[in-house]
């Protein structure tokens, strides 16, 4: 009973506060702040305020994508594309237009929708097959080129580096050597068909250390990034909404 009363009071007070702020600070920004705090409240614990914000978020964002995909892909790409192709071929008699290929996309898309009809739903597998096949084919080359080959090419360099004075730069040389060693041992760590024991295991060990240093570096950067976002949010609450900064 008491809890219920308390809950009502809390809600009432909350509404009052937001109402006042909406009047003073503007409705739009207050609405933004309302949801901002709603999400933050999850940090304390799962609660109705968060559940509400979450529900709104899911609905709004799903709808957002639904609308975007409809106008951008369904209308602008497919419908307008076919229309343009029709013009070139049948109105201007300019022959084939690549945009006719969109029809194939439309067909594959329809196959997807056929899942709604269990009898012929298996046709959707054909669309999936195209997607998966094309993705496999594209990645097969592209990732390997940018992340395999070119990285290999970048490592290949003489170990020793020189200072402007032309003297041997010991530190630079050592670093370069470490770079090569680290990369190689890292690759060794991923080696599947040999137990990580003996000398081989030792190299693999160095490999995992290198990876750990890498992860550490990423972590450091990520902390930086995440904190920036929080700063941005706080700036929104304290500055943009409540106007407390300057």
């Amino acid at each position, binding site marked *: 009973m008491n809890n219920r009363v308390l809950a009502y009071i809390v809600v009432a007070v909350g509404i009052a506060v937001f109402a006042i702020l909406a009047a003073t600070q503007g409705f739009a920004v207050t609405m933004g702040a309302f949801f901002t705090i709603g*999400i933050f409240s*999850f940090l304390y614990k*799962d609660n109705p305020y*968060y*559940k509400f*914000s*979450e529900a709104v*978020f*899911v609905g*709004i*964002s*799903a709808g957002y*994508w639904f609308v975007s995909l409809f106008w951008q892909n369904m209308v602008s790409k497919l419908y307008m594309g076919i229309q343009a192709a029709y013009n070139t071929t049948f109105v201007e008699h300019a022959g084939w237009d690549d945009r006719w290929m969109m029809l194939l996309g439309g067909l594959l898309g329809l196959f*997807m929708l056929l*899942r709604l009809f269990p009898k012929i739903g298996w046709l*959707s*597998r054909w669309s*999936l097959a195209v*997607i*998966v096949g*094309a*993705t*496999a084919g594209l*990645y*097969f*080359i592209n*990732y*390997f*080129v940018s992340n395999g*080959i*070119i990285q*290999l*090419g970048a*490592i*290949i*360099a*003489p*170990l*020793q580096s020189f200072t402007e004075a032309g003297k041997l730069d010991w530190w630079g040389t050592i670093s370069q050597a470490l770079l*090569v060693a680290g*990369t*190689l041992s890292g*690759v*060794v760590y*991923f*080696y*599947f*068909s*040999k*137990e*990580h024991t003996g000398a081989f295991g030792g190299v693999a060990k160095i490999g995992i250390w290198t*990876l750990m240093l*890498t*992860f*550490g570096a*990423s*972590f450091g*950067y*990520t902390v930086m990034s*995440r904190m920036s976002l929080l700063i941005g949010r706080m700036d929104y609450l304290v500055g943009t909404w409540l106007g407390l900064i300057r």
Partner: protein
Amino acid sequence: MTLIRRLYCILCLVSGVALLAASSPAQEADSVLIDTAGVEVTPAPAPPVNVGARDTPSDEGYSITVFWELSADDRPGEDFVTGYRILRAETPEGPFREVGFSSVGATSYTDASTEKKTDYYYRVETQADGASSSSPVIGPVQSTAQWFNFNLLNLLIIEGIICLAILYFIYSAKSGKKLFLRKIAGLEAVDEAIGRATEMGRPILFIPGIQDMDDVQTIAGITILGRIAKTIAQYDCRLHVPVSRSIVMTTARETVKEAYLSAGRPDAYSDDFVNYVTDEQFGYVAAVDGIMVREKPATCFYLGAFFAESLIMAETGHSIKAIQIAGTAMPAQLPFFVAACDYTLIGEELFAASAYLSNEPRQLGSLKGQDVGKVIAMVFILLPVIVLTLGAIFGWEFATRAGEFVRDWFRLIQM
């Protein structure tokens, strides 16, 4: 200016005029002007010689390469010549308009603004401050497309070798050859994790990343889901797969359904195992967090392409004391999975997982093939580095050249 230089310039000038006489009348006019103006004004530089143009090889057919030999006045250390203008027209008579400019010492230019099946005529002008002189008009040239890009031959070879290695081991494995594979901790733990969920009577949460099916990591995640779902079906435990892409939802359902079928439990399958939430990264995470704190899954799998949400999930998962097995090829997210999850599949291990879990010879064979790829990679790193280093230490020309050849082999990848 020395007398010789002066005479030389006049000579060039005359020859230039002679050449121009053959080419466009307009050019003749201004060169004559220079001529009458005589040696008082800046003398015209010698035109480039042996100018030629041909269709650029290995391309889509929208470019022509113009090449020439340096103007006699374009000598290192002299700043008399400022560069070369490349002019193009569709008839020998012109009008010629500039399509590009090459700096001093350059002997070719690729005009990447041509149309197919059109005749083009080029001439190249040597530029000197205030004066210029043109080569004769050359052409007609057409740009055409080729059926193979020879710049990528090396790529084709390297990929070919690795593929053959993988194929070889796939088929040797098929023929029953035993293959050793080291243990991968994260995958050893899968059964235990599922068992735990069964004992506790809590669901298992599987997140196949937040990318769509056009990302190979998602495909890898889904294939693993297929393996895991089979075990889950046998243990008869609850599976929940919230996804953030409709196509992934479709694929995941197909996969899980088949898994239950092959586990002999088609009756136990329901489409509700897999449900779509929203495409929006953080809307999705908000929902998944909600699911975690309310359904309290005993085991969470995060296998696929992850971004910022990785840590939100991993930390929430930890706060509900779930066993967490993660895997991704997103280096930025690995540290958090490594720190917050019980087991993490790092990069390549994610792609190996499905093969590893399948325990099917051909799949395992492909892993062996990958290892061959690694050996090749290591050799290709180590040898050239050593060679180059020695070359640099002892000043061995051939060593340096050999090393650089290999390096350029890797660098020479562009369209």
